[in-house]
């Protein structure tokens, strides 16, 4: 062939359509995690779309999030204080996770395991604060999945359902991190390499990213 053009010139098509692997050198677990996350994205997208729909269809006023989620600090109500801290913690945990991945690939399994444990602890504290937030909403504000004193019942139902589903993801992630961290520490991956740290990290970053969307759609809107 004289002049190969476009995609062919970059060998993208040839590489992807080649034998054995589409994504060269990508471990099975990593490919599978990416595909799973794509599927999970659709779950959260459906949840958030459903939330937006019922927020439009409900006939009662939507409670003001900055008031509902305000926290009393030094005698003044600060809007979204707790949520800001929670978000900060979760995003910090993504940072420690990235450092753990780095340490893993450098085969420094002590620091890798330690950073993963820190990530898990940050995640656990996020879930703890979420429990605090839920308790406050239920006990003090009287929000229930089927209704609340401030307005549309869908406020409570979507809130508990979506943050609950996300909280389950974080909790599962904490367990996942703890198990992998323990195995890294024990040296179980010395032979096969430390891709598993990155795979765990993919899941963790995904959970963080989803939180950013929940934060934006639920608390800021």
């Amino acid at each position: 062939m004289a002049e190969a053009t476009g995609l062919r010139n970059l060998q993208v098509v040839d590489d992807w359509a080649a034998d054995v692997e589409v994504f060269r050198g990508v471990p099975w677990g990593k490919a599978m995690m990416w595909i799973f996350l794509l599927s999970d994205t659709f779950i959260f997208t459906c949840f958030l779309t459903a939330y937006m729909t019922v927020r439009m269809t409900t006939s009662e006023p939507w409670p003001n999030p900055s008031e509902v989620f305000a926290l009393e600090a030094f005698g003044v109500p600060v809007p979204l204080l707790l949520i800001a801290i929670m978000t900060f913690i979760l995003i910090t945990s993504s940072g420690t996770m990235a450092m753990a991945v780095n340490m893993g690939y450098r085969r420094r399994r002590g620091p890798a395991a330690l950073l993963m444990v820190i990530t898990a602890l940050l995640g656990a504290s996020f879930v703890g604060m979420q429990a605090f937030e839920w308790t406050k909403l239920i006990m003090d504000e009287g929000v229930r999945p089927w209704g609340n004193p401030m307005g549309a019942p869908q406020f409570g139902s979507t809130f508990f359902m979506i943050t609950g589903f996300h909280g389950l993801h974080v909790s599962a992630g904490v367990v996942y991190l703890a198990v992998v961290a323990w195995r890294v520490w024990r040296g179980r991956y010395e032979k096969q390499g430390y891709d598993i740290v990155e795979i765990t990290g993919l899941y963790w970053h995904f959970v963080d990213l989803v939180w950013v969307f929940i934060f934006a759609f639920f608390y800021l809107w």
Partner: protein
Amino acid sequence: MAVEAQVPYQEAIEVHHPHSWITKYWFSQDHKVIAIQYGITAIGVGLVALALSALMRLQLGFPDTFDFIDPEAYYQFITMHGMIMVIYLLTALLLGGFGNYLIPLMCGARDMVFPFVNMISYHVYFLSVIVLLASYFVPGGPTGAGWTLYPPQAILEGTPGVDWGILTMLGSLAIFIVAFTMGGLNYVTTILQARTRGMTLMRMPLSVWGIFMATVLGLLAFPALFVSAIMMLLDKTIGTSFFMPAISSIGETLDYSGGSPLLFQHLFWFFGHPEVYIVALPAFGIVSDLISTHARKNIFGYRMMVWAIVAIGVLSFIVWAHHMYVSGMHPWFGFFFATTTLIIAVPTAIKVYNWTLTLWRANIHLTVPMLFAIAFVITFVMGGITGLFLGNVIVDVPLSDTYFVVAHFHMVMGVAPILVIFGAIYHWYPKMTGKMLNDTLGHIHFWVTFLGTYIIYYPMHYLGFVGVPRRYFANGDMAIIDSSVEMLNQTITVAALIVGIFQAVFIWNLIYSYFRGKDSGHNPWKATTLEWQTPETPPRHGNWEDKKLPTVHRWAYDYSVPGEEDDFVPQTAPQTGSQPAT
């Protein structure tokens, strides 16, 4: 710059060989055993759904004759029949069964990439079937909301099974989706990352392409069903109002307010329409391989076939609201969705033309699998053409919720994929067991099933045109119902019972041939694809020789190549200098 050749990772690994009976046949990690487990469970539950359809037909053909069929029971039959057939039979059998069996063998892999997860997938599926069938043993029986489970009626008093049946149904669906996800991730990853040396994407048999695309659709579409199942469970159990508007039921105002029933329909059909193609695409792929093999001719337009599968998959995500023309959504939506729906006809027509052109002047062997394959093409065209009617808003509105719709979807996604499944079983049974299925029994089974389904579904188009509504327990003395309807309904019922009973011939054939069938040898159909080149039949755990996976040198369709000694060249045969590489 040359890239270095890749070595299949599975080549080197040792397969763990099970020793005890339990790990070999029940908790097996061998994809072939899991496939057969999926297959047997799916066929078993499918027979339940077949029996339910017979009961429905008895009522429709001979109303006021059977005391044990009351309207409640009838609605429960409808719901369970639909849900079982679509999800627990077709999806599970095509992806869990054929997907599991064919993917590793056709790609030249030892097994799925994560055999343990694959094993769990089957057992979770089994659990979902148990929960579903438990519906018949809970107070009030299964839900009678129709397979679409539309709220508000699905969770309101007056619908059968409102106390427990709807819970087991939604729970079972959620469990099924978990099972499917575990299996589906395995299928996709195996196809993408674990093919053998020389098996490029454009050399894969179309069966693998169809199963691949269908699995991708499943992984992206089932989330919508999962989410709607969770929300409806919450609406039912703790009284949230996701799908429930302010409503009064039997004179009593309920505590619901502000929810959106339309939201459920959108979520359901965002799953439900791709689901049609989750069932159809594997059938498309498999039928392409059956036709090419039994016509001893390469598939016409292989690349076009692949891209048609991909295009149908993509398009299937933007047509869902054509199920909702009469739901009260904005007419502009109807315009958009009608357009996208009709566009799907282009890639599907390409496929039908290519099947026909593969048969054109081919050396057609009218084996039982081939008969089923040809029957599929005819039936699919029939069902597809009525789809063009229903895809247009203005034609759909009067035909909505009539027997025309019943006829359409049974033709296109009921009978057509089932015909492929039968053909595929007749085709691959020799590989699974080492025995041929009995030919005579196969012919009897084919002709009764094929002709019978036409006697059943053809008149339903007419019933739809004269306005017989679907899902009605009895038509009574409605003035709009023509007098010919009664006789037709009786004919359909008789035909349905005969076809149903004759499936026993097929089941008997499966059992009889396993013990008394003729030995098949390794490659009875003289096929090119990898699963027929295994060293043993049935292939052992690990499929191929130790430490050595097959090497693929050509595409899957080298039939009747001029100058070759045999009329087929296996994919493992090296290219001789004169041929162009594919």
